[in-house]
């Protein structure tokens, strides 16, 4: 199988920030992936247009996530909060880039993920935080439960690789191995049963990587998403589809999982 990540070719890594604590986590993942001056980092802070439309409604209310008190949702306030979170994301990206000595850029994008992805087709790696905005997903519903997680439990969460039968999966596996090594986490490779032909090859790759904790789980495609969710990975690595970063596939993953996603082209 192809080694982890081609260490020689300069890469363009795109990070999509969505605000909140997930941004810090994705910056951590980014730091584990970037180690070369040649890498080029591009940060995109995604602002949900729907939110602004909502804020224009006269009766729009917002419940504080911490205190659960309700307050009016104001456009100006929303703008300011977005700006603060974008600045924070930009700072996190800059820190990672400066440590690696890489070139970096940052922009705010108001719209949907699909429109943002459309402008990032030349990226080699795509990092996505947990989705925010749009209609609250199961990831949001589990947010309060995540408060409960201990630091230790957080540390033991593995890196997950979803090995679809696509050409970029071997690179996704390489990236997953690299992340597991860098972060000291275990690695779980999810393999749809329709792609189980590559089981032995993946096994050999994992053996040669000599990771202390690595496992392969072959799962029915229908149960794949649920299995990944139950594994509660710290990071999910997937390969990009034949047509690039298909928003529907990534969108589903983002909605259903509570972890950063690395998409490898």
């Amino acid at each position, binding site marked *: 199988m192809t080694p982890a990540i081609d260490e020689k070719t300069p890469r363009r890594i795109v990070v999509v920030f969505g605000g909140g604590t997930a941004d810090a986590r994705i910056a951590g993942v980014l730091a584990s992936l970037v180690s070369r001056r040649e890498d080029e980092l591009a940060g995109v802070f995604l602002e949900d247009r*729907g939110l602004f439309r909502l804020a224009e409604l006269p*009766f729009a209310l917002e*419940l504080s*996530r911490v205190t*659960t008190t309700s307050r009016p949702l104001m456009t100006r306030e929303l703008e300011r909060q977005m700006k*603060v979170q974008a600045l924070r994301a930009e700072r996190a990206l800059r820190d990672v880039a400066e440590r690696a000595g890489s070139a970096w850029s940052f922009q705010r994008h108001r719209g949907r993920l699909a429109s943002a992805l459309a402008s990032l087709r030349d990226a080699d790696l795509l990092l996505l935080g947990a989705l925010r905005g*749009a209609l609250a997903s199961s990831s949001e519903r589990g947010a309060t439960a995540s408060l*409960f997680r201990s630091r230790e439990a957080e540390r033991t969460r593995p890196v997950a690789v979803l090995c679809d039968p696509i050409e970029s999966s071997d690179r996704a596996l390489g990236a997953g191995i690299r992340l597991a090594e860098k972060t000291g986490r275990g690695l779980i490779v999810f393999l749809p049963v329709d792609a189980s032909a590559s089981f032995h090859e993946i096994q050999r790759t994992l053996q040669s990587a000599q990771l202390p904790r690595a496992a392969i789980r072959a799962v029915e495609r229908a149960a794949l998403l649920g299995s990944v969710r139950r594994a509660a990975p710290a990071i999910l690595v997937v390969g990009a589809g034949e047509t690039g970063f298909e928003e529907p596939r990534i969108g589903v993953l983002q909605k259903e999982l509570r972890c950063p996603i690395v998409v490898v082209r």
Partner: protein
Amino acid sequence: MSGPRELPVAALYRSCDPRTLDFETTEELPDLDHLVAQNRATQAIQLGASIAQKGYNLFVLGQEGTGRHTLVKQYLEQKAAQEKPASDWCYLNNFDESRKPDVIPLPSGRGRALAEDMAQLIDDARAAIPAAFESEDYRTRRESIESELQEEQEAAFEEVSKRAKERGIGIIQTPTGIAFAPIRGDEALGPEEFNQLPDEERERIVKETEEVGKELQAVMRQAPKRVREARRRVRELDREIALWAVGSLIEELTQKYAAHEPVVAYLQRVSEDIVGNIGLFRSSPEDRSPMQELFGGLIPGDQTRESPATQRYGVNVLVDHEGTTGAPVVFEDNPTFQQLLGRIEYVSQMGALVTNFLLVKAGALHQANGGYLVVDARKLLSQPFAYDGLKRALQSRELRIESLGQAYSLVSTVSLEPAPIPLSVKVVLIGERLLYYLLQSLDPEFSTLFKVAADFDDEVDRSEENTQLYARLLGTLAKRNSLRPLDRFAVARIIEEGAREAGDGEKLSARIRPVTDVMREADFWAQKAGADVIGIGEVEEALAGRVQRNSRIRDRVQEEILRETLLIDTAGKQVGQVNGLAALQIGEFRFGRPTRITARVSLGSGKVVDIEREVELGGPIHSKGVFILSAYLAATYSSDEPLSLAASLVFEQSYGGIEGDSASCAELCALLSALAGAPIDQSFAITGSVNQRGEVQAIGGANEKIEGFFDICRARGLSGSQGVLIPTSNVKHLMLREDVREAVEQGQFHVYAIDDVDQAMEILTGVPAGRPGPDGAFPEGTYNHRVRARLADFATKRRELGKEPGAGP
């Protein structure tokens, strides 16, 4: 009254006959396990060491070098060997209040074993606890709690979400919370679309949005309760798993230490505490913050490098008696406050000084607890607060470790207050007599804490038995110091030197150290000569070497006398001038020096002026001697009328202080010579004090004084008439040098024993003293007659002067 007595050679030196020593070399002699004739001190030490009551500590007093340390060490070590070993003491973490560490005693040697067992337990727990917490069982049960919580949350949220969706309301995340919006399909309704809705629809949407908001609010408010409940369940699970993981380890130790109740109780507390602090065993280096890494001040190998678990459950073996037998005997050479009472050490962490129970360090009192502590009194008293700290510990009978800053309220930072340790120790202070008497008079607590004084004699009787014991002592010292054995001639010579050191032919010095030094030096000469045994020659060489090394000042003084810078006559006759003798001590070397004493008389009011006293160079004892002269003159020669003379006495060319009354006889002779006009033969020197009856009394340093005058005479050439007058009571002290004895034997030098001043004057002036007749008058031609006549003449003249016109009453 008998006449003056010229002493024969035999009286000048009490030799030790080697024939009385029934051995060839000291190698044949059995070791001496006690000191010679120190029974009083020995018994006191035995008594003090044996009484267990409070306050029966010992003060061993005596001159330095008398074997105090040796005897104390020897006796205490023998006694302690028969006693039961002292306890080990361990400081342990106090889980309720870590500032106040607990302390437990353990039988000798068990402290270290407990420490090792606890270290092993920590190691085992460090492996067992993470393994237990990584087990499938634990993970599954924990995840099921998490999953249950998540499901509950999701179910509640889903319910709200579902109802909201039915009402056409969607839930949307904002940067800081959750908002609600009317939806069409998957899109939120915009303001334009909303405004196009009929009024009733808009009102419904607003109302529904508010209701959904309230429902969600209710669900979200339940969330913390659910989380708390889940946390409680996880804590219980953690407790169960931890107990399972360490339970067997603790149980094993509990059985091992079943006989030691404090240890069992401690293990129980450890078990409970581990359950509440399992994080200590599950933490990894990742938990150390970069700040800690940067400023931790943690040095590899340092105790603080210990893991948090070790810092919490380790054992500080404060006192470890493993491998020892009997009670401890501790000699503390550096009795500072901290060395005696222990200390609390600190380490730098994050720029601050911190400490814990593992950094509590024992002092000498801890080490000696249950046994004996021997301390040099002078060193103890010269260390700030050490004596007070020792007394406090002895009074309270417990050892509290605190810093000086704490003890004297100089610092107010939070520190440790280790639990006090019961103290049962016998303290032996060794010091000089002066210190003992000063402490007794100045410190009221001293007598209550040091009830037993062991007073070492400076000298012992030179009896036949003691001489034999002394020989054995020399043999023992030779063996103990790895020296060659001494033959009996050498032993005899050292015994003689012991008497000389004591300044008494009938005594032996009890100071062992100078004797040992002579033996060491003699051994050196024997080695140089290739001899297997130290002989008398090597001893003589050693003794001569010691004199030669120390006699620079004596030689300079004698040189100045011979060069007549210092005026001393050794021939001829002078009125009112006599050779007195002074003894000087420079370090360990003592020597005699002749001093010219002169007296001048004239008519006066009966006052004898001591010029030394007038210029404040004379000490009080010297002045006392001069006042005695006045009394003697008045009582002997002028009992019927006022003494009408003015006399002055002076130590010529004396520029330092003069103390003692050993020259008072010489001063009286000079005065009588001046009054009688009888010249004194300068071939003589005289020493001795005198009382009001004219009796001559003993003085110190007789040997050195005689030798001092002899050296000058010999250097100028012995005339055959020169000699020294000493009090008869000093004859027993004589241990004169061989060269002096030889000169006396050949009639070239003389030593006279005198009992009173008349005998002295007869020898010095050659004029008979004369005894008063029945009428109290002295016979004519005697010096006493001349003195009385002169004083009568002064009295007459004074009376006549008093009758002259204008004279006072």
